């Protein structure tokens, strides 16, 4: 079945829905999602969304820009970063105008809180910049956007799983998707296609992500012959609940939570004496991991303690109610009276599908755009987060760039773009995936492959990396990719076959992880979240550049493109 729309957006998180709202103002827009829109991973964002409104104290977009540039260890493109921080103010107000239930100040303004890496006066004191709705900020933003889409009658295709991008001669004409509930292939034919497919942290054993975050969009792009950018930069969040990795928001430290080791010491004194627990995530994650590796985890085990007790019951219940509940439900621990066991947990993709500042996907180091193909959100890389994302900058990135991309697509169509011809084998591109898997008779268990992938990514491609481990991981990934060819899907039916979809997701994970390992192996320096124990220094001479990675028959091919520097020259970071 072929569906015709002007714009087809894949993904219904903050990025996809904001784009849908913008595009649907002037053109016929459809949104595809493998989960019901409000089940998208954006729902989980807790702590806040960054915008220099200055509601609590003086703030400015220049300071926010400086923090974003420095937080990203100078690898972010400063033109894109400047757009983020300038438009953040407009977007925060726009969300409020759509009814977003932000928490309030005494004067009735949007309340703002401290978050790691947010400072005033170019890196001096902390500044309250994170707008929040208790600790349900993502929920508040996502629901607000979904509600507005309902109001505007945006067309949703819910529980449609996108399998392949339809692209020929660098012109995009649509996607092929699988109707999850009934089964069956559908072609979506469009003038513009956007991927807002989110992140990929399910490839690690300990992670904060939803089970649906399997990096599908990134792998579909690789499979279409396009590159991914800066994939080696994977953010580990310092405070995952032990052992599951479920996130305890940075807001917990923003509100004054401490980290202590086995000796009961606030060990950040040693690593980041000035900013302590409110240093950027890469710094805090490495500090925790070092304590654990050197035997100062609690009882010598793989975790340290987060102490919230001194905040008092009232503050905890008012400002961190969801966190309190979550810790109670998942660990049986009452954070008002007890320590919380935590460890670094895989969290966020700094890299992704390369785009320009209007969300157009580019396909090479010269930034040549693909006609009719756009991307935004965690699955994309503009790049505003550089080598390490600042807390609260992701939901804002999704909102600002989702909105810009929606506008860009509407403009593109308004200027007379036509539907491009579908490739002759359009349906086949989906069919081979699905029918191939359903027909395969094999001996390998998808669960065993996934388990091995997640375990080994944790050990060999985690907070700390080195050549030997990355090489080993590459071998493991190759062997898992080989074994994947032998998996069998037991249930062959068409109706809501989640086994089939699980296996497709696993295949996607096995594809994009290779770009992370190969990119990380090549990058012989430490920058932001990419830390090489064998190359512990940042090397601007050789590595002030973005990685582009393609999948070819002979493995991953790399190329590089320059970083855009406008206002702030690279400097050493100290926290």
């Amino acid at each position: 079945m072929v569906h015709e729309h002007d714009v087809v957006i894949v993904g219904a998180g903050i990025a996809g829905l904001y784009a849908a709202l913008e595009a649907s103002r002037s053109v016929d827009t459809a949104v595809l999602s493998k989960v019901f829109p409000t089940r998208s991973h954006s729902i989980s964002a807790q702590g806040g969304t960054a915008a220099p409104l200055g509601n609590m104290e003086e703030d400015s977009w220049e300071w926010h820009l400086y923090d974003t540039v420095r937080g990203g260890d100078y690898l972010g493109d400063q033109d894109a970063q400047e757009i983020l921080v300038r438009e953040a103010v407009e977007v925060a107000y726009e969300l409020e105008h759509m009814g977003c239930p932000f928490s309030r100040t005494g004067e009735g303004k949007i309340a703002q809180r401290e978050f790691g890496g947010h400072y005033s006066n170019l890196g001096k004191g902390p500044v309250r910049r994170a707008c929040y709705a208790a600790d349900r900020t993502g929920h508040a933003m996502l629901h607000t956007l979904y509600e507005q889409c309902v109001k505007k009658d945006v067309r949703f295709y819910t529980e449609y799983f996108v399998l392949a991008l339809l692209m020929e001669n660098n012109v995009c004409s649509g996607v092929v998707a699988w109707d999850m509930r009934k089964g069956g292939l559908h072609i979506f034919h469009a003038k513009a296609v956007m991927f807002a497919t989110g992140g990929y942290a399910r490839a690690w054993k300990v992670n904060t992500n939803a089970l649906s975050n399997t990096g599908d969009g990134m792998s579909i792009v690789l499979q279409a012959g396009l590159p991914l950018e800066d994939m080696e930069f994977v953010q580990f969040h310092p405070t995952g609940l032990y052992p599951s990795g479920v996130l305890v928001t940075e807001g917990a430290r923003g509100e004054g939570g401490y980290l202590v080791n086995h000796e009961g010491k606030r060990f950040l004194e040693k690593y980041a004496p000035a900013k302590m627990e409110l240093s950027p995530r890469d710094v805090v994650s490495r500090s925790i991991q070092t304590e654990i590796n050197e035997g100062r985890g609690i009882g010598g085990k793989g975790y340290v303690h987060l102490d919230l007790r001194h905040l008092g019951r009232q503050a905890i219940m008012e400002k961190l109610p969801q966190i309190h509940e979550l810790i109670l439900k998942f660990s049986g621990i009452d954070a008002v009276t007890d320590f919380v066991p935590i460890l670094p947990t895989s969290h966020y993709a700094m890299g992704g599908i390369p785009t320009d500042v209007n969300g157009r996907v580019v396909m090479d180091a010269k930034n040549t755009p693909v006609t009719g193909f756009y991307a935004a959100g965690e699955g994309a890389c503009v790049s505003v987060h550089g080598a390490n994302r600042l807390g609260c900058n992701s939901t804002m990135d999704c909102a600002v760039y989702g909105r810009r991309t929606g506008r860009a697509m509407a403009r593109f169509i308004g200027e007379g773009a036509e539907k491009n011809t579908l490739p002759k084998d359009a349906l086949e591109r989906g069919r081979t995936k699905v029918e191939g898997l359903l027909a395969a008779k094999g001996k390998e268990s998808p669960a065993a492959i996934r388990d091995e992938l997640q375990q080994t990514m944790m050990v060999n491609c985690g907070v700390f990396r080195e050549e030997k481990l990355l090489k080993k991981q590459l071998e493991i990934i190759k062997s898992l990719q080989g074994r994947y060819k032998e998996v069998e899907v037991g249930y062959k039916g068409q109706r809501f076959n989640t086994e089939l979809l699980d296996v497709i997701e696993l295949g996607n994970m096995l594809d994009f992880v290779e770009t992370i390992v190969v990119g990380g192996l090549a990058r012989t320096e430490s920058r932001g979240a990419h830390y090489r124990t064998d190359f512990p220094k940042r090397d601007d001479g050789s590595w002030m550049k973005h990685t582009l990675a393609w999948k070819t028959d002979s493995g991953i091919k790399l190329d590089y493109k320059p970083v855009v520097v406008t206002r702030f020259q690279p400097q050493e970071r100290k926290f």
Partner: protein
Amino acid sequence: MMQTFKIFRYNPDEDKNPYYKTYQVDVQEGMTVLDVLNEIKWKLDGSLTFRRSCRHGICGSCAMTINGLNRLACETQVKALGGGTVEVEPLRHYPVIKDLAVDMEDFYKKYEAVKPYFIAGTSPTDKERYQSIEDRKKIDGSYECILCGACTSSCPSYWANPNFLGPAALLAAYRFVFDSRDEGMGERLPILNSRHGLWRCHTIFNCTICPKSLNPTWAIGELKKKVISEKY
């Protein structure tokens, strides 16, 4: 510890009738019902269908009936169920698509029917619309709804009258009616006050099963008062 899980199975393409299938799972400390379902799906029987996404009680995908009560599988610790056989069934009163996955189209339709979105009469300034801390507090207990469907599934008034808007939709209406910035009361009132609206709620309190500890019955009570005071 090996434990028995009795799970509702139904594939309309293959089965004449629904049936229960029993699985033995080795339950480790800290495992939730969702972990068990994943274990079954990944290791024992891939054909089992259920929905899940966030795995920490915030997306609303995994609402189902566990030992007779509507809960989120991902935040129900197996241990908390007190041992013995655990029975897992789909949310009741929605058509089953397959196994534990139900068709929520009607639920969403009712949600949409109450105009669950911000309606402003006046245009905004270039800053925020001010709202006091006290006014903001009034929507606590309603905006947190994750649309999991557990409440509506447990509502006897809804069982009796499938046209009733149901607790989740009405809670969504509350979310906007009591938002000091919203000016959509005039548009929503006829919907709330209609034959299948507020007055079908007989204050049975079944919907307080809500896994997010929200209280739609209470909110509906407040809406009733509001509607009366607006109208008369």
